[in-house]
């Protein structure tokens, strides 16, 4: 893999758990030399436990209130706390990993450097306009196959790199509850671009993006009424991902999926999560036809404008379906305001 410029990267960790010792110690070989932004869930009462030896800035509720005001800090509760890190970062690339994940091992037994893999994905072009059957054509030992149009071989800028998970995969509660013993053991050695117009559920567990390109498009917007502190009880990242993909498609950027893998530790109880009224399912069903038919205006050329237009459409077309959508639309508008105010005072 090509050498990366560590000064261009911020590693943003949302601390939903207080004790980050095991997490950070296990990532030390790969986080070392990078600047870390740790954002504490404003609802977390305990003090954070962070081992020494990292170049890290920690942000808590007080810091959030200073930057965005007391009324807006609720936007960053739970898993959404990491978005505050995205907001105040000044770097080109963000890599974000959930605090219950450790480095995975590849089939040779070597630990996977997820940070380098993500940044490499972001630095190389994406190919959303035509599917390459040998997957990422820019990787060593691969190329475009016969029949791939030459005019499309330059690719487009990559906006996001969505990684995967070994052990506890990112399944929803009903699926995990039904298959309690199922663990993901298959290491699929590929990175590929998700084609133009194809929708996908982007997971926030292991993700990286080009902040300079699409930062405002990662919106902390959709909050489930019963949102909890396990991924089974959230949908914020899936909604964010639908928005991000749609905006990337509109602006001509690409979204990659595949490597790197992280190892996701056992946490939570799927059956327990099932007991809560699982409205995420309902909201997704309503979101899909909306995104399928959505067309952003040609005049929306900046990411911020795309988010505003998207929010408008959400309010108009989905607002009456569920209050969660109206709140999401408002949050998206607020997010763009915050983004512009925080990032203009530079």
């Amino acid at each position: 893999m090509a050498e990366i410029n560590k000064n261009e990267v911020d590693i943003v960790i949302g601390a939903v758990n207080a004790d980050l010792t095991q997490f950070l110690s296990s990532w030390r070989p790969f986080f070392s030399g990078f600047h870390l932004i740790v954002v504490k869930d404003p609802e977390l009462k305990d003090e954070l436990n962070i081992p020494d030896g990292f170049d890290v800035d920690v942000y808590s509720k007080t810091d959030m209130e200073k930057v965005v005001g007391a009324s807006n800090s609720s936007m960053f509760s739970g898993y959404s706390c990491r978005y505050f890190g995205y907001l105040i970062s000044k770097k080109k690339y963000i890599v974000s990993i959930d605090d219950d994940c450790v480095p995975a091992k590849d089939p040779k037994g070597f630990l996977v450097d997820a940070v380098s893999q993500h940044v490499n994905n972001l630095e190389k072009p994406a190919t959303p306009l035509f599917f390459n059957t040998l997957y990422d054509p820019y990787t060593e030992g691969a190329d475009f196959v016969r029949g791939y149009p030459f005019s499309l071989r330059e690719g487009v800028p990559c906006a996001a790199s969505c990684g995967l998970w070994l052990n506890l995969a990112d399944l929803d509660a009903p699926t995990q509850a039904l298959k309690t013993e199922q663990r993901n053991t298959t290491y699929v050695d590929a990175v590929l671009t998700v084609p133009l117009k194809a929708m996908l559920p982007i997971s926030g567990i292991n993700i990286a993006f080009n902040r300079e390109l699409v930062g405002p498009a990662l919106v902390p917007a959709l909050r489930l009424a019963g949102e909890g502190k396990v991924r089974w009880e959230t949908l914020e990242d899936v909604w964010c991902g639908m928005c991000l993909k749609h905006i990337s498609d509109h602006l001509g950027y690409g979204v990659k999926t595949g490597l790197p893998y992280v190892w996701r530790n056992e946490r939570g109880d799927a059956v327990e999560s099932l007991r809560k009224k699982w409205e995420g399912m309902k909201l997704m069903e309503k979101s899909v036809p909306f995104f399928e038919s959505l067309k952003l205006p040609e005049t929306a050329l900046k990411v911020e404008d795309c988010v505003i237009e998207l929010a408008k459409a959400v309010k108009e077309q989905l607002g009456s379906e569920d209050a969660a959508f109206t709140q999401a639309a408002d949050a998206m508008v607020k997010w763009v305001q915050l983004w512009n105010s925080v990032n203009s005072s530079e």
Partner: protein
Amino acid sequence: MKPTPMLKDELDIVIPTIRNLDFLEMWRPFFEQYHLIIIQDGDPSKTINIPQGFDYELYNRNDINRILGPKASCISFKDSACRCFGYMVSKKKYIFTIDDDCFVAKDPSGKEINALEQHIKNLLTPSTPHFFNTLYDPYGDGADFVRGYPFSMREGAITAVSHGLWLNIPDYDAPTQLVKPLERNTRKFEQTSFAMPPFFLEPVLLFYLLVSVLVKCRYVDAVMTIPKGTLFPMCGMNLAFDRELIGPAMYFGLMGDGQPIGRYDDMWAGWCVKVICDHMGWGVKTGLPYIWHSKASNPLVNLRKEYNGIFWQEEAIPFFQSVTLPKECTSVQQCYIEMAKLVKEKLGKVDPYFIKLADGMVTWIEAWDEINSPDGAKAKAPVGKDK
């Protein structure tokens, strides 16, 4: 884990060949119970050597001319595109087609891959063209839909095509082959591979002999559905499909002798097939299984064949990307005839070849319907039969 059904009475293996079928010896454990349809290209007076014990029917050019009469003009000569004649005369539900220089590959654990079994698994399980699953094929063993995948879409769509991949010699176009003569797509952990192409007689390429190369490798352990609305380059080397569903759209075009283009037969079929599958709501999978592709064809010869294609595909791709088939097209044949009309209209101005090709597409459908009609079984028996 349920065992995969063999489908031995429901699947034909179609193999085009011009030399011999020695490669079948390696496939014997996997192919022996199936019926083979062999399309002998080139000189019909030549005898193709077929290993003992296989149940096959063989068609040479004389058979094709006899069976189709004037409609035989739609079947290519001196090009493996002639294989689509095999699809037409088959009476089975499924087709698996493979090139005669493709061998059994091994997975990273060293186990031999039963490519046919994997294709059957792919075809018998649904596809997911309407929403991408980040853990790839959710119907595979140990896999599932991820969080956020809409429940209403989890039944999936019927799978029409299973597109397999290749280890060793990757399916590159001529310019890429020329630039990267040593590149191999090989199984992980195998450190050396010998390049023994057939063009060792060309002085400028003699250095290929006895070259051993250390290469990075890519065995990608996944099957995935190509999303609706996305085109891809379909390779005919290792391909299976539901003939009853999509067979009429699997026309491999006019290539080879007397034609200005070659090595775009499967590409052309793939673009037509994908547009029609998208229209009909069917899925196309790609990924596993891998086969071992042994023969690197001469890149300079390939360049001559592909030359026009390289330019024409720049026109063809936007054409296929913009095609909308009318709602009234409810059968594959109707879709295909409509496509032929559009090809003539929109691509005819790129080169007169496309007008000929559009006519070939119509002839193909007419021939297909004739052969596959209830009295189409009056198609006379082919020359070679064994077992």
